[in-house]
């Protein structure tokens, strides 16, 4: 009886994801099921629906509910200079290579509310590379992109950001880059001078240019294996030989069909370098 009940829920989830795709072109159908299941259970409870099917009926007929759904389905947990050792490795090991290019394009794929993007812009400014760099910050969630573009964060988070920045080998003080007011930390708008914000889906969209560095951390962990392969394939296509790919600390290309297109550049920090054609 219990087993039957579980399966019904999985059918409901599949149908809801189909509805979101066909009605709104948001494609979560190849996301990792364990996480989608958990978040849809949360959404059902918190939005007060008896079943996931009931939630599907509502979102299908009421576009204003889409934002609620996206809030549950896209994960927005980030911090500036998250995993300081990753940014230290970018600074010490990757930047010397990037200096040899007259102009640079950097892609923060799945930028969410912008913390990772601004970390890169600040690091590049400190290293004297900002002027020659174009930063692409992409996400599928319009609310998150708007937050990224605003660059305003809760003041309570700034202490952590500051510690991370220092631990990553930051050269100035993080406070050089923001002002405060109304319990908010407002990032200097000059940090957005060379940033292009764009709606882009790793599920359905294509590459849009050659990049010297792609940072995509803790984004693909929400994808199933096949979708991970698609996304890594995009990065493989967008990176020239010797281009860099940075992943989250517990992500790996070990299980990817594209593993042969990369070598481990800084192993412990999951920074890969494109090899071959």
């Amino acid at each position, binding site marked *: 009886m*219990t087993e039957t009940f579980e399966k019904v829920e999985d059918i409901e989830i599949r149908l809801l994801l189909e509805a979101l795709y066909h009605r709104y072109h948001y494609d979560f159908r190849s996301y990792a*099921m364990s996480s989608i299941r958990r978040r849809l259970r949360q959404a059902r409870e918190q939005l007060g629906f008896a079943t996931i099917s009931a939630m599907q009926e509502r979102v299908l007929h009421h576009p204003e509910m889409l934002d609620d759904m996206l809030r549950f389905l896209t994960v927005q947990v980030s911090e500036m200079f998250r995993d300081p050792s990753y940014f230290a490795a970018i600074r010490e090991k990757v930047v010397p290579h990037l200096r040899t290019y007259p102009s640079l394009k950097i892609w923060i794929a799945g930028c969410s509310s912008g913390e990772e993007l601004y970390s890169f812009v600040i690091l590049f400014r400190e290293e004297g590379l900002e002027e020659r760099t174009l930063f692409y910050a992409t996400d599928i969630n319009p609310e998150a992109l708007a937050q990224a573009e605003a660059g305003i964060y809760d003041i309570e988070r700034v202490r952590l950001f500051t510690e991370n920045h220092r631990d990553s080998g930051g050269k100035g003080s993080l406070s050089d880059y923001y002002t405060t007011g109304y319990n908010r930390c407002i990032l200097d708008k000059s940090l957005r001078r060379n940033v292009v914000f764009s709606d882009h889906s790793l599920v359905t969209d294509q590459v849009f240019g050659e990049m010297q560095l792609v940072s995509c951390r803790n984004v693909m962990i*929400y994808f199933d294996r096949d979708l991970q392969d698609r996304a890594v394939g995009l990065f493989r296509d967008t990176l020239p030989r010797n281009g860099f790919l940075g992943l989250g600390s517990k992500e790996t290309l070990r*299980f990817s069909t594209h593993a042969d297109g990369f070598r481990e550049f800084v192993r412990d920090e999951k920074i890969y370098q494109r090899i071959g054609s």
Partner: protein
Amino acid sequence: MKDNPNGAIIIGASAGALEALSVLLPPLPATYPYPIFVVVHLPPNKRSVLAAIFDLKCQLRAIEAEDKEPVQAGFIYFAPPNYHLSLEGRTHVALSSEEEVLFSRPSIDVAFESAADAWGSQLTAILLTGANHDGANGLSVVVRSGGTAIIQDPTEAYAKAMPEAAIRACPDARIMTLAEISTYLQNIQ
């Protein structure tokens, strides 16, 4: 080695975990027929040495899981610090950096619930010592899905709060001492 084992063991622990796991895991033979998942609360921004320690102590291979790690019998998979561990069907481990649950990431509740989704009645979930209430909800999902729920006897636990909360949430769970759990694990081969 079977790629799709018929059952699985999942263990959650917090304060006092190292000592308790040191009783349970080392006696298990290299031919143990189930995968074992272990979720221990850890400080978020430090590398963990748990998997390395138990890889030395145990006859089974112990590793810290990476995202989409294939599930194999005879392996012990530790949840890494600052990530939730869940099961993607019976074939892969999935990690996520979703928000903390009960101030914990990894969360025992999250891991237990997803393991119950994957293995149903073929899951054995064991909740050990700990000083908070994580695991109680997850263990009740295991019971509802027909799995076996075991709680360490709080009278001998290093920290009693976690097993006590689980006993309140899951009156049907079996309460055992570490020595009894150890024997149980060796006998279900």
